[in-house]
């Protein structure tokens, strides 16, 4: 009797869920449609891209477009530049904000609160509003077309400092007391105790920093002229403008540029969500 009831309830719930699943699938199809079409067109011969009506399925997939993207257009170089830039920015941001967040949560020093407020205030300055003097600085340092020019202005982050401080504040104070008694200096306490307990927060910041650096557009556009120094974003944007006869190859390049980030976002979804909702502090 009871089992029957249970089964019936499960069946009812499934039946109720059917329209829900229809909505879910249709919405997913709409969201994925631009990605899907890019994938289809990246496998077409160029003639198919220029004819009406458009195809929704590649009849004879041209996988060679992907090989061309790696050989005929400088995708490997673009990817390497982006990888170097994003890695340097990520490592730098983690270093600077770990140190600052540590000072703001475990050390006592004059003007601590005022300094923390100054740090936070940098989040109110839109990067785009200070881009002209920043460009002039990089120009004067002769850093145009260099990795320094691409990365150094982004090596510190108030968001990262804030995020890590939020986490450091949750660590029990007794840890610090015990470390003091054991004669640990600040650096040793940070390296041996705080960092091992903060892997998730650090991973969150790393995912964020990398994604943001990899996806930058305006700054690399300004500080790189040499095609060899272009990042993947600037590379595909300029190629789709110049290589109209090879749009399919450029689209294969676009897919190649997107895939690592798609992987990052899916694999580290948990950390991404945590970072995006880090501001959600219940007051």
């Amino acid at each position: 009797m009871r089992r029957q009831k249970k089964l019936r309830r499960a069946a009812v719930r499934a039946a109720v869920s059917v329209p829900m699943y229809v909505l879910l699938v249709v919405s997913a199809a709409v969201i994925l449609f631009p990605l899907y079409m890019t994938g289809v067109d990246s496998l077409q011969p160029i003639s198919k891209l220029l004819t009406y009506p458009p195809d929704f399925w590649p009849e004879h997939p041209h996988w060679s477009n992907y090989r061309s993207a790696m050989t005929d257009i400088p995708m490997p170089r673009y990817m390497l530049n982006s990888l170097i830039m994003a890695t340097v920015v990520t490592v730098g941001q983690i270093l600077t904000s770990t140190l600052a967040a540590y000072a703001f949560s475990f050390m006592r020093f004059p003007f601590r609160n005022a300094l923390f407020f100054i740090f936070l205030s940098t989040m109110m300055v839109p990067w785009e509003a200070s881009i002209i003097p920043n460009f002039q600085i990089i120009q004067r340092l002769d850093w145009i077309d260099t990795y320094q020019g691409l990365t150094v202005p982004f090596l510190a982050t108030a968001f990262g400092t804030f995020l890590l401080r939020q986490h450091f504040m949750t660590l029990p104070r007794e840890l610090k007391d015990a470390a003091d008694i054991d004669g640990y200096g600040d650096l040793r306490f940070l390296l041996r105790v705080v960092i091992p307990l903060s892997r998730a927060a650090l991973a969150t910041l790393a995912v964020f920093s990398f994604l943001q650096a990899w996806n930058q557009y305006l700054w690399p556009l300004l500080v790189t002229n040499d095609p060899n120094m272009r990042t993947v974003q600037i590379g595909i944007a300029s190629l789709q403008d110049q290589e109209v006869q090879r749009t399919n190859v450029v689209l294969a390049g676009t897919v190649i540029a997107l895939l690592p980030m798609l992987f990052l976002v899916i694999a580290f979804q948990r950390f991404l969500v945590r970072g995006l909702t880090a501001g959600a502090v219940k007051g």
Partner: protein
Amino acid sequence: MSIASAPRPRERRRGRAKVVREAVAASPFVLPSLGLFSLFVFYPLVRSIWLGFHATDPFGRREVWVGIAQYRDVLTSSDFRYSLFVTGQFALYTVIGSTAIGLYLALLVHRRLPGILLFRTVYTSTVASSVAVSSVMWLLLLNPGVGVLNYLIGKGGLPTANWLTDPKWALVAIAMTTVWMNVGLATIVILAGLQNIPEQLYESARVDGARPWDQLLHVTLPALSPTLLFVSVVGVIFAFESFGQIDILTKGGPLNSTTVIVYSIYREAFLHYNVGLASAQAVVLFVIVLLLTGVQFLAAQRWVFYR
């Protein structure tokens, strides 16, 4: 240690020495970030304001002090006012679009159904797509001749459009691209907001006999309003900082119909070499974003803005 019983002057001296020692100890931790912020945030901000007081010749070399004349020109020029209007319009389209769609998607994946994690991943996946990647993808869909969008619209019997070359549609087309790009982010934040709503609220609503629709209107939406406000303000700020999609899709045209503020700054500074005027525009942008952030802080103290 009997510090408490020590004579006062010595204690004070020791206190001062301690403060100095603390400052020295903290410096290596704080100075790297502080130095970078000073050089790449604070100094450029002050210099932008300074440059706004100077007119530059067409080669961007000589700077002549002109006082507030340039700021006045910016605020009264019809071009800049138009770009403010365009940016406002763009903000309106994108905020309404991504908040509404984000809310819809978050509500869809809120319930725990089998396989829901897959759908959550799909709906939030667009955060991976950069502005350049998204723009190149949409350029293809928006192509008036062979693009899929016009094909589908035509099949539906609706009039097709020259999306990126018709002043009436270009901003709408860019807004569509932007909404697609931002909707993953909106969905993530709204979903987190939904999951923070205490279950008791729904229970008491159910006891009162509220149907699902009533629950949505009278429980979910009011409880979610701080989140929705947060998403909207962040969306407005994003709109005021947009550049890449305009540079790739329209370059500000046709007839300036997509010249948003940042594109205008970029064009003045880096294509026309009018650094002074561009700086004055940048300062106006800074003030606008500052005010928006202030609204954010005041209106929703539950949520803290960050980038």
